[in-house]
């Protein structure tokens, strides 16, 4: 990939889409889950098509990484869009279990049983 391509497609467009907003708040993990809690009514002032796509996609919980892959946008851009939707009450976020909490015996048992049953 040449640099011009990288510049055009992967930096400028997402930046314009987020109107120059960058990730100012606590950075969402790639596996932070988003789920829609309020449907859009068709016309929502100030929401872009990408916002509406996220609201539609997240009828079931999806991670930041999955949303980014489906929208073909960098994860950073998706974090900004999710922040907008959170502020306007369209989605709810669930952050992953903090590292110190990854020691719950029930979780390990459930994961091991689930893997064995695959």
């Amino acid at each position: 990939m040449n640099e011009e391509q990288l510049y055009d497609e992967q930096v400028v467009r997402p930046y314009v889409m987020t109107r120059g907003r960058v990730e100012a708040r606590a950075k969402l993990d790639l596996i932070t889950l988003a789920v829609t809690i309020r449907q859009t009514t068709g016309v929502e002032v100030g929401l872009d098509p990408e916002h509406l796509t996220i609201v539609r996609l997240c009828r079931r919980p999806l991670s930041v990484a999955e949303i980014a892959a489906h929208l073909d946008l960098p994860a950073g851009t998706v974090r900004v869009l999710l922040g907008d939707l959170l502020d306007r009450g369209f989605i709810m976020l669930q952050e992953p279990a903090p590292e110190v909490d990854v020691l719950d015996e029930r979780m390990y048992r459930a994961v091991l049983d689930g893997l064995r049953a695959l």
Partner: protein
Amino acid sequence: MASARSEQSKKMPTAIKLLIAGGFGVGKTTMVGAVSEIRPLRTEEVLTNRSIGVDDLSGVEAKSTTTVAMDFGRISIGDDFVLYLFGTPGQERFWFVWDELARGALGAVVLADTRRLADCFPSVDYFERRGTPFIVAVNCFDGAPRYKLDEVKMALNLSSEIPVLLCDARRRESGKEVLITLVQHAYGRRPVAKV
């Protein structure tokens, strides 16, 4: 940031991250694809020069951003948990992304190829240094020299409690066995819960 881990958390599964690391071409994405319920997806982080560090930009000053791609898959465990398997970016210079991926990860699989064993040294070093539970899975490529697992363990200078096993990254059953070994190892390694 506002989140809902408390009363509403019943409606949402808990996301758990596992990492698949190793050298370029060792079969990370193959393994992700073999066990994932979705075809592997790709996500990209755009790094600015602030996040990569000045050294990496010497000679390419005009380039102020770099895109790092990561392939990942998903395994739903009932309604309560969802495992995300991330292949780590091949270039170890993107420590920024490794740190982000490793944060909160339950553990990591280091995939090794006995023809190029040294390729997995940086991954082993990284997880040892960071204290992330990890295991080593030797991907059995056709025609690759077969070594005893003890020999691999010695070559990697691994402590005795780190599991080392053979695998075939293309096979779902094999990938399952690797992940089960990792979760069991991480379980044994977890800090004693504070009561």
